[in-house]
């Protein structure tokens, strides 16, 4: 009985999609705008009418939207498979890299599910090699390469040519020294004025000057965010996504 209900629901849903497809192209923009508006209206009304009946619906609506967004998981995967499978089948230059990508993806999926739902020591070890032995260190190392690029940039690109650059460098040096023990060590000697130790000065720069400047920038961002949110909610935005809907796009 349950299976029938689910299958029936799938058929009704499929029929609804077919119905949408058969609608005149001029209706498409309005359907998208209506869906966008209703979705935004729920959260906006929930905000302006606190502790109303809408607040009780936050949890089930949130659950539903979480599940719908989770279904997008295949988007990137499908694209990658299409591109790299084509590389392999047509033996394009570097096709073995594409093959390794597809094989590693398949391996992670197979052993990921097997490890989760199975109880095998060997499978667990293989999964451990894939996750802790390859995925984590590869990602970690990719980000850590930036340390070397910063060294290179500091030597070759950071040039003090103006008052602004000088201010920036002085602040950078104070913060760099203040955030590590060397700054504390340098300013621990008796002749260093009390209350002006490097870490304290760095902390003051961060909590007063930097905090105020970032807040000022944040207020500008907030105004822009309100404008952008309203434009998206009311479908007033223009651009590739928003324009090419009514025709063949």
């Amino acid at each position, binding site marked *: 009985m349950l299976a029938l209900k689910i299958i029936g629901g799938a058929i009704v849903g499929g029929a609804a999609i077919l119905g949408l497809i058969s609608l005149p192209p001029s209706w498409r923009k309005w359907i998208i705008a209506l869906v966008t508006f209703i979705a935004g209206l729920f959260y906006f009304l929930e905000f302006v009418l606190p502790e109303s009946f809408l607040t009780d619906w936050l949890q089930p609506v949130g*659950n539903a939207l979480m599940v719908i967004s989770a279904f997008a998981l295949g988007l990137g995967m499908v694209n990658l498979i299409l591109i790299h499978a084509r590389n392999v089948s047509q033996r394009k230059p570097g096709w073995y890299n594409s093959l390794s990508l597809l094989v590693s993806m398949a391996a992670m999926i197979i052993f990921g599910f097997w490890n989760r739902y199975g109880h095998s020591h060997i499978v667990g070890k293989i999964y451990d090699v894939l996750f802790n032995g390859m995925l984590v260190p590869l990602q970690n190392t990719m980000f850590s390469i930036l*340390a070397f690029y910063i060294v290179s940039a*500091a030597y070759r690109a950071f040039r003090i040519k103006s008052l602004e650059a000088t201010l920036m460098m002085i602040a950078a040096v104070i913060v760099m020294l203040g955030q590590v023990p060397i700054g504390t060590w340098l300013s621990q000697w008796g002749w260093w004025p009390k209350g002006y130790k490097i870490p304290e000065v760095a902390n003051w720069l961060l909590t007063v000057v930097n*905090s105020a400047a970032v*807040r000022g920038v944040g207020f500008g961002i907030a105004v822009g965010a309100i404008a952008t949110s309203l434009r998206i909610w009311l479908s007033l935005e223009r651009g590739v996504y928003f324009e090419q809907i009514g025709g063949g796009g």
Partner: protein
Amino acid sequence: MRDLLLRLQNIDRRWLYVTLAIVVTLCLLFPFNLPLYISPQVKSLYDAVERVPKDKIVIVASEWDAGTRGENLPQTRAIMEHLMRRGIKFAILSQYQQGPRLAEAIAEELARKYNKKYGIDWCNWGYKIGGGMMLQALSRNIPKTIEKDIWGTPVEKIPMMAGVKDIRDVGLIVVMSGSAVIDGYIAFIRSVYGTPLGFGCTAVMAPEQYPFLDSGQLVGLLAGLMGAAQYEKLLSSPGRAMRAMNAQSMAHLLIIVLIILGNIGYAMSRGSKR
């Protein structure tokens, strides 16, 4: 000297990479003691954890992945160690796929040290997609939003989740992240329900969080590896973060020296062109 500096202007950058690697390796191999300054923001977070009532749980939002592991892992470890020491129950949550698994490994390691048990002293809610939608749903009804833990156990069957219904049963949320997920926690939980919120972020993000500290929207901040090292010192539990501080100090000095040398060389090269 002048010729040397001018020639150094065009040095192959790989020599700079080697210099960095040698400096950091030597500092790790031959450690030395340098005093560690405890910033008020780290102390503030430490005090917030100390104030958590024993009848409430803490959410350790492990919103990071392997890319920021170098900074967020020691922070997560330090916070979890503090919670386990105090006997405060906590739940791991993440909007990053790797977060729950990386955090679980830390919790299991600490559980062996403090003799803690999964389900009684901590649990792992796993990966939950949804950003603001998820956080708003979580605030209203935790069991219905989480449903099952990372191992597939229904939340109602986890002993420590008995009596945990909504955000009012949470005494503190500590978010560890290298991205702007904290904005959602501030907007939808802290500012609406007043639940205390702490943040362990990567150092690059730290300057942007100070306005939130100033307004009280964050109760404390761990900035990068340094924040983790300071927290380890407060716990009197030296770990990898504290041991890395020497290397961090020398790396910073190296950068400063290179900036100065680069600018001296640049000024000289401009002078010689004239």
